[in-house]
C-alpha cells in the first residue's frame, strides 16, 4: 500500500466524515444557541440510542434506514414529551428535558443490555463514543481511486449519508434564512411579519434531529453535543452579525474536526506512545480549547 493510499483510506476519508458531521451539527447549533436552547441538542442526542435499539428489535438487523427512522422517531417523541411536561404538567423546561432524556436513555441502555447484540456492532460504548477511526476506505489504492467508480462505491456508507445530511441542513438554512434570522431575537416581530414562529421552531428541532441522527452513527453522541454547542458558542464571541456567526461556527467546527482527528491519530506517536487515542473525544476537546480561546480573546466576548 502506498503512502497516498494510506492517507486517503485511513486519514482523509474518516477525517472528512468527522468534518461533515461537525459542520452539520454546527449549523442548527447556531440557532439553538441564540434561542437559549443549546441543551436541546443534548436531549436529542441522548434519545437516539433508544430509537436505534427499538429499530433493531423490530427489524432484527442492523440496517441504515430503519435505524435512522427509529432514531428520528425517538427524537420527535422526546420533543413531544418535553412539550407535554412543560405545557400540561407545568414542569420547568430544563427539568422536563432532563427527565425525558435520562428516562429514554436509561430505557435504551436496559433494552440494549437485555438484547442479544453480541453479533452486531451495537453497544453503549459505541453509542457514546462512536468509532470514527473504523470508517476507513480499504479499496483506496492511490489518488487515481478518486476517479475510479468501482473504488468509490466502496466508500464507507456513512460518508454519503453524512454528506447528504449536511447538504439538506445547508439547504434548509439557506431557504429559511430570513425567518431563522428574525425569530430568535423577536418572536413578536416575527409574528407580525406573518412568519409562523411555531413552525420555525419545529423546523429547527427537526434539522437538529437530522444532524444528530446522521452524525451519531459516525461520531457518537458526545461529539454531537460538543458540535451543537462549542463552535456556535465560540462564534458568538467573535461577531455580532448572524451571517458571520454562522461562518465562524462552520470554520470552528471544521477546524476542531481536522485538528482533533490528526492529533488523536498522530499526537500520541509524536509523544512516543504506541497507539492512538479516541478521535471523537479529541475533536470535542479541541472544540473546547477553541471556545476557551474565543472566551479569552474573542472581539465580541463581553457580557
Amino acid at each position, binding site marked *: 500500500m502506498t503512502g497516498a493510499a494510506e492517507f486517503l483510506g485511513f486519514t482523509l476519508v474518516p477525517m472528512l466524515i468527522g468534518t461533515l458531521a461537525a459542520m452539520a451539527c454546527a449549523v442548527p447549533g447556531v440557532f439553538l*444557541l441564540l434561542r*437559549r436552547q*443549546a*441543551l436541546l*441538542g*443534548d436531549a436529542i442526542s441522548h434519545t437516539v440510542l433508544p430509537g436505534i435499539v427499538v429499530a433493531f428489535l423490530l427489524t432484527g438487523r442492523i440496517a441504515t434506514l430503519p435505524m435512522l427512522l427509529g432514531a428520528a422517531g425517538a427524537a420527535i417523541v422526546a420533543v413531544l414529551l418535553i412539550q407535554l*411536561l412543560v405545557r*400540561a*404538567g407545568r414542569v*420547568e423546561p*430544563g*427539568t422536563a428535558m*432532563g*427527565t425525558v432524556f*435520562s*428516562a429514554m*436513555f*436509561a*430505557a435504551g*441502555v*436496559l433494552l440494549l*443490555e*437485555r438484547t442479544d447484540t453480541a453479533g452486531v456492532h451495537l453497544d*453503549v*460504548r459505541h453509542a*457514546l*463514543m462512536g468509532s470514527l477511526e473504523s470508517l476507513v476506505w480499504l479499496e483506496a489504492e492511490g489518488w487515481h481511486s478518486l476517479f475510479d467508480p468501482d473504488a468509490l462505491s466502496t466508500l464507507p456508507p456513512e460518508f454519503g449519508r453524512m454528506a447528504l445530511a449536511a447538504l439538506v441542513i445547508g439547504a434548509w438554512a439557506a431557504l429559511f434564512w430570513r425567518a431563522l434570522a428574525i425569530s430568535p431575537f423577536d418572536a413578536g416581530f416575527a409574528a407580525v411579519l406573518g412568519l409562523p414562529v411555531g413552525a420555525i421552531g419545529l423546523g429547527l428541532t427537526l434539522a437538529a434531529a437530522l444532524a444528530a441522527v446522521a452524525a451519531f452513527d459516525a461520531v457518537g453522541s*458526545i*461529539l454531537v*453535543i*460538543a458540535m*451543537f*454547542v*462549542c463552535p*456556535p*458558542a465560540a462564534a*458568538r*464571541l467573535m461577531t455580532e452579525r448572524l451571517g458571520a456567526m454562522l461562518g465562524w461556527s462552520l470554520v470552528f467546527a471544521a477546524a476542531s474536526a481536522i485538528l482533533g482527528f490528526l492529533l*488523536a491519530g498522530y499526537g500520541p506517536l509524536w509523544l512516543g*506512545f*504506541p*497507539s*492512538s*487515542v*479516541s478521535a*471523537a*473525544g*479529541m*475533536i*470535542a*476537546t479541541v*472544540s*473546547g480549547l477553541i*471556545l476557551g480561546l474565543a*472566551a479569552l480573546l*474573542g472581539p*465580541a*466576548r*463581553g*457580557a
Partner: protein
Amino acid sequence: MLGQALALGLGYNATLVTLGAAGLGFAAGMTGTFLVLRGRALLGDAIGHATLPGIVAAFLVMVALGADGRALPGLMLGAALSAALGVWVMGWVTRRTRLGEDAAIGAVLSVFFGAGVVLLTVVQSLPAGRGAGLETMLLGATASMLRQEAYLILAGAAVASLAALALGRTMLWTAFDPAFAQAAGIPVRRVDRAATALALAVTVIGLKVVGLILIVALLIVPAAAARFWTDRGGHVAALAGLFGALSGYLGAAISATAPALPTGPIVVLVAVAIFALSLVFAPRRGMLSRAARARGAA
C-alpha cells in the same frame, strides 16, 4: 429473589449497598429540589459528565505510583476535583462572557466528557486488564462491589443526607424567594455554592451506584415528582428526599437480582415511574385533578 432483595436478605454487601443507595437518593432528592426550584436542573448533568477526566486521570496517577488504579477513594477524589473545575469553568463563562448558562453547561459537559474519553483510550493501551472496571463508573455497577467500597458509599451518603437536612431550610428560602432571602441577610451566592457542592458530593458518592451519565436524573426527577403533590417548599423537599430514597432502595434491590445489568438505569427508571404516577395522579397539580378542576370551572 426480589422479595429477598427488598428485605435486605441477599447478603451483607448487597444490604450495605441498598441502604447506601437509599441514603444517596435522599440526599439527591433534597439537593435536587433546590436545583429544580432555582431553574438550574441541568447543572447536575454537567457535574456528572465533568467527573470523567478526573476519574481516569486519578487511575493513571495511582497506577504510576504503583498502587491499585481502581481504589475507589482515589477515583472519587479525582472525580470531585475535575467536577469542581468544570463548575468553576461554567461560572467563569457565564460571568465573563455573553454566553448563557445553557451554553456553558453544554460546553463543559461535552468537552470534559470528550477529554475523559481520550484519557480512557490511553488507559486501554496499558497492559491488558488494568483498566477494566473504570467503565462501570459510566452507568453504575453495584454487583461486584467490595466491602470497603460499600462502607464508603454508605458513610458518604449519610454525611450528604445530614448536610442536606442541615442546609435544607436556608436552601428553600433562597430558592422560593431570592430577593426576600437576600433582604433577610441570607448570603444567596454562598447558598447557591453550597447547593452546587452538595450536588457534586452526591455525584461523586453515586458514581458506583448510578454512574456519571444518569446521576442528573436522581437529582432532579424525585424533586420534579414531589412538586406535583404540594406547593409548600418544605414538603416538596421532604417528599423529594423520600422519593429519591425509595428510588435508590428499590433500584439497588432490583439490581441485586440482575447482576449483569448496570444499576444506574434501573434506579432512574424507578424514579421515572414515581414521576409518571405523580404527573397523572397527584391530587393538587397532577394532570387528572387539573383536568377535573378545569371541567368543574367551565
